[in-house]
């Protein structure tokens, strides 16, 4: 307690902090960014390892050899899909029953809050078909899920074919100790959501679905297959789930190890790993992979059908077959073997690795906790600096801007979806556009609000007032970013990088126009816009400004839809917390 109770030492410490405040803040901020970019540099990161020997690549003999059969099943499925003009439920039920599974179907329907223009759907109704292979060797308390989506058009037929071929092969083995569920879901994530909610007897998003007739044990792991061609050149492993959740690291390692053993090319974020980390190109490559992962994780949506499993604490990943112009080909047999090995290995419960955060390269993973400290340390130091200025009275004067900012946030959260009909009536736009444009309009209107109300309510702001407000806002921001970084590190990091510099240095005495411009350019909406461009740049499909703008609009509508459909948290977080917090700083700028 010496430090806390001895007044002399305390005084020395506070003096040091006040004097060195600015340098400390700058150093912390830069150190965080440098450290973060350093994560892509291989010697800085820890090597991955198999935390259990049993997960190693020995001890499995993979004999699955019916790749050809899978392809022929895929053709058959394709024909029936065309004939039925959608999911061929009867055929699938028969096919699964013929392979000795217990087959059930589940129907569901969902009305979207507004039409989804990317996928062209509004009133969605469909059926999921799933078959359960009962475990022969153990009580039926645990289960694995292998799933393939039934997508419109020509895609993903091979995945369903492979699923059926695997079912047949698995049925002939006698050593299963877990139930294996083969699931074909319709309307990608919506069907998956209905099935998972039915399986766990929850209803989070107000979806209508029929209860499941057959259940297996509690699901331990899940694998989503996406194959759209007879021949593929590499396998892409997709990890990012809803709200930036990631599966256990062992799952990733397992795949990577087996891909190497079976001689398949395994990529992550569509990028093949390089071994030349000590060259500039190698580093750039790793950094690009990492940035892609950060952006995908930050946007909080599920990038494959596996994403919703993670919410139920089920380890899950998607494998997507990619057909590029590489020389090297992989066939369905290999993928079948891979899935088979996956199922064999799942008898071991994953438990070891908690802090799996990024994959700059597939081989490396990173301790997350240190990073959080870095990014939060910068905010807290800032908060501390303001606190040292005297700030006794006037807590009540702060209340007005805080309440007004939050009301604007609530409006931003509620109004776009609720006002779409009115907007469509009065303006020549479609529903989706109406929602997005309302959101942008409210966002922009919020900029005008605070500094007008301030004048109206309390006249000229006092010097004391803005200091208290800034202290409150900085503390609020620090807590907010800390919590965000804990739940979804990438999102927290991106927000911290853009928000911290301007919010830390803002005062009403700075040149208004210049500062206002800087604040707007670093506001949350512009951050999204930058992310869109950076993402396009990273996946090597750069876009023009106009296209970027259209993408930005669709990103917003998708964000709102993801929230309504699957309960993604990014949109409410931005609308209800980050944006009001940013408005408070905006308020400080126009204090007098």
């Amino acid at each position, binding site marked *: 307690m010496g430090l*806390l*109770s*001895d*007044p*002399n030492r*305390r005084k020395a410490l506070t003096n040091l902090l006040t004097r060195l405040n600015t340098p400390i803040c700058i150093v912390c901020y830069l150190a965080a960014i440098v450290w973060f970019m350093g994560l892509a540099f291989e010697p800085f990161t820890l090597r991955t390892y198999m935390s259990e020997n049993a997960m190693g690549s020995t001890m499995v003999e993979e004999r699955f050899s019916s790749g050809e059969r899978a392809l022929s099943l895929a053709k058959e499925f394709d024909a029936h899909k065309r004939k039925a003009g959608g999911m061929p439920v009867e055929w699938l039920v028969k096919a699964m029953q013929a392979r000795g599974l217990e087959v059930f179907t589940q129907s569901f329907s969902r009305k979207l809050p507004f039409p989804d223009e990317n996928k062209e759907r509004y009133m969605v109704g469909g059926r999921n078909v799933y078959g359960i292979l009962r475990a022969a060797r153990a009580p039926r308390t645990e289960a694995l899920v292998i799933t393939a989506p039934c997508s419109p058009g020509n895609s993903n037929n091979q995945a369903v074919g492979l699923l059926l071929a695997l079912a047949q092969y698995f049925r002939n083995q006698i050593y299963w100790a877990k139930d294996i569920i083969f699931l074909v879901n319709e309307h990608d994530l919506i069907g998956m959501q209905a099935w998972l909610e039915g399986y766990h007897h929850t209803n989070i998003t107000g979806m209508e679905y029929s209860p499941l007739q057959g259940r297996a044990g509690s699901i331990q792991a899940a694998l989503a297959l996406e194959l759209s061609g007879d021949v593929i050149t590499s396998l892409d492993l997709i990890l990012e789930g809803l709200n930036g*959740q990631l599966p256990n690291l062992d799952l990733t390692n397992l795949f990577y190890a087996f891909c190497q053993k079976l001689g398949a090319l395994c990529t992550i974020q569509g990028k093949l790993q390089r071994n030349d980390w000590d060259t500039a190109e190698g580093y750039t490559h790793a950094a690009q992979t990492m940035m892609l992962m950060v952006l995908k994780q930050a946007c909080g949506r599920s990038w494959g059908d596996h994403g919703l499993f*993670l*919410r139920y*604490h089920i380890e899950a990943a998607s494998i997507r077959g990619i057909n590029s112009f590489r020389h090297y080909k992989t066939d369905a047999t290999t993928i079948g073997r891979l899935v088979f090995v996956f199922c064999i290995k799942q008898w071991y419960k994953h438990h070891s690795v*908690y*802090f*799996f955060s990024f994959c700059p390269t597939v081989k490396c993973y990173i301790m997350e906790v240190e990073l959080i400290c870095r990014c939060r340390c910068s905010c807290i130091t800032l*908060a501390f600096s303001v*606190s040292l200025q005297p700030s*006794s009275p006037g807590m009540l004067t702060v209340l007005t801007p805080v309440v007004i900012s939050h009301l604007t946030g609530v409006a931003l959260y509620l109004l776009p979806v609720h006002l779409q009909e009115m907007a469509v009536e009065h303006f020549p736009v479609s529903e989706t556009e109406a929602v997005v444009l309302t959101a942008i309009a409210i966002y922009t209107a919020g900029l005008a609000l605070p500094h007008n109300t301030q004048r109206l309510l309390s006249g000229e702001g006092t010097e004391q007032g803005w200091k208290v407000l800034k202290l409150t806002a900085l*503390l609020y921001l*620090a*807590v*907010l970013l*800390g*919590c965000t970084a*804990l*739940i979804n590190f990438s999102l927290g990091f991106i927000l911290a990088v853009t928000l911290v510099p301007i919010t830390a240095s803002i005062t009403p005495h700075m040149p208004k126009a210049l500062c206002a411009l800087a604040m707007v350019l670093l506001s949350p909406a512009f951050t999204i816009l930058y992310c869109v461009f950076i993402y396009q740049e990273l996946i090597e499909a750069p876009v023009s400004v106009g296209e970027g703008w259209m993408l930005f609009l669709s990103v917003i509508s998708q964000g709102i839809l993801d929230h309504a459909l699957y309960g993604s948290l990014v949109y409410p977080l931005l609308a209800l917390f980050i944006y009001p917090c940013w408005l408070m700083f905006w308020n400080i700028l126009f204090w007098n």
Partner: protein
Amino acid sequence: MAAPLTLLLIVAVTIRAVLFRSSLAELIVERVEVVSPLNAWKRVVEGLALLDLGVSPYSGDVFHETPLMIYLFHFMVDYAEIVFMIADGITAVALYLSIQTYNKNVFRKQKYALESDRYPADCLELLRSPKEMFYIPLKVAMFYLLNPFTILSCVAKSTCGLNNAIIALFILCTLKGSALLSGILLALATYQSIYPLTLFAPALLFFLQRLYIPVNLRRSSFWFFTLQYAFIYVGSLVVITGLSFFLLGSWDFIPSVYGFIFSVPDLTPNIGLFWYFFAEMFEHFRLFFICVFQINVFFYTIPLSIKLKEHPVFLIFMQIANNLEDRPYPTVGDVALYMAFLPAWSHLYRFLRNIFLVSCVLLACSALFPVLWHLWIYAGSANSNFYYAITLLFNFGQILLVSDYFYAYLRREHHLTHGLYLKKKDGTEATLVLK
């Protein structure tokens, strides 16, 4: 002053009524920070169902309320929300009136001291003026009613709101000088959750001071009054316990309520320190550590009573706050009760040293509790250690807060007798250090 208080009550009731109707209520009821096994509403409902079926509510290991509480809700279960809102209202009004009385006493004492010229000349700025004291009772009521912790606790229908009401009434009766009512209410509070037992000492000290009886073990008047007060207390405790026995027809509730509090069998995570400690410990040390932890609660009564024997009301505050940190099943509702007293000590502000740090810690912890719970239970990317770390930090914040107020109070008293600007022997400026 009645008008602002009424307005405050209306606002508080409106907030609670809105929250009761919203979808948030279901979420709040499940939070481990807000409800504990001792006071969860779900368990009350379970107990009521068992009672209706003619089974003893204490069979099984779900229900841990006292018999009086279950009979209260036996009649009031349909109006539960109103009961909890009224309880909060009673607490606030009782605290309001008590602090008003206390302030009057303080001011009178200060006036006498001033007239008899007992304060050093440079201490005048430390004296309290009626103007600054005028709004303190209202602030106390506001701190209780609008504290998010109280609101959460009320919306979750945690019965600690009722316990708080009893304790607040006890404080009111004590400060109003009614030994009989104070003894009965203290017995009732003890019956509800045992730990208010430690408030016996401050209440006794207060009455002794009020009746001008010196604390002297050789004086018969001291012993006479102590025995009288103890008799009221123990007598009402016996009557209440006997009443419970006759209501229920068995002594089941003794092990199920008090045994449950003392032996800490339920290790559901909460904001206290017991659960993690006892979950991690080897079984054969359990008894020993339970004794150590439980003695810890009562142990501080003795040194604090000796140090603060001139200031019983501050002692009550210290005891309530201390109790909370060392009890096995604390909830945020209990925290709210002692936080309500903070405005009453607003004159100590200039001597507080860690208030900014403490408020940051408490704020951050309150936000991190649900986040880390989510990461531990749902997302699976954290574990119990993370949650426990926040619990530790939260308790550290509270201890720092209480010790800071303790230090500030003592320091102010020191200055009032020795002058504000202390000099060392060699003439330089001295600083006070708490050791």
